[in-house]
């Protein structure tokens, strides 16, 4: 089947992997913000990833650009390792309710991505095992 190859190791897996890394970075930012909620003069942090993702958004639906998408995702993953958190320009101080909302959104995104990726891999597994458990 021509679609199982991409499922196993192609652009989709790379994108999901980068998105999961970004979700962990966002979690680190939220954890830091919540821990420092009472610290005076504390500047809230955010994950640097989000601006980088905007570039990818238009290109993921075109399978012909998969190779470039994979390269871009790879470089994004590497840059996330070095300095993932920056100061958040839109939040002058920590607002606990907004941080909790971000936490819930982020957790949900992480779990949804994991479940979806697991199901996609499950399709490949079904083909490999010929439908027998």
């Amino acid at each position, binding site marked *: 089947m021509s679609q199982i190859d991409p499922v196993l190791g192609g652009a989709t897996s790379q994108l999901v992997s980068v998105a999961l890394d970004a979700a962990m970075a966002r979690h680190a930012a939220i954890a830091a913000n919540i821990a420092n909620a009472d610290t005076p003069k504390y500047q809230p942090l955010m994950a640097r990833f989000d601006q980088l993702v905007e570039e990818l958004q238009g290109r993921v639906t075109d399978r012909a650009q998969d190779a470039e998408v994979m390269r871009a995702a790879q470089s994004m993953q590497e840059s996330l390792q070095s300095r993932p958190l920056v100061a958040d320009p839109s939040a002058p101080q920590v*607002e606990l*309710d*907004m941080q*909790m*909302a971000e936490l*819930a*959104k982020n957790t*949900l995104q992480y*779990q*949804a991505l994991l*479940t979806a990726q697991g*199901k996609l891999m499950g399709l490949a597994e079904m083909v490999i095992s010929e439908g027998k458990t």
Partner: protein
Amino acid sequence: MDISSIFDISAAGMNLERQRLEVSALNMANANTTRGADGQPFTPLQVIVRSGMTPFDAVFNAVNGGTLTGAGPVGQVQTADVPPRQVYEPGHPDADANGFVSYPGVNPVSEMVRLIAVTRAYEANVRVFNAGRSMAMKALEIGSGR
């Protein structure tokens, strides 16, 4: 419908209620303040709440099935136009020519009632938030448990 806009709306609601709580607390704490640090009399504050959605947003969303992000309430803190409470204290340093001192027109009873309303509204927003989250988590269980 965008799942993240559900969280953003509830978060904006919670933020607004917290703002109203802060303003109420400030008013109650300064109920007997005659002068501020700049020498001006203290005027009680209030939060004016408007919906963040303009009519154009509503039309755009209806046509394109877009998200409701930005539809949450937006609160602005303004001074309330309440006449000050006049108390006759001729020996007070801030007394005017007739011996009356102007205290801020803070009504403790209405502030307490507002506090109760704010608490209930905050709880309601938290419930909506949790309900949205439970629904999304249930959606993740589609197709599992075979």
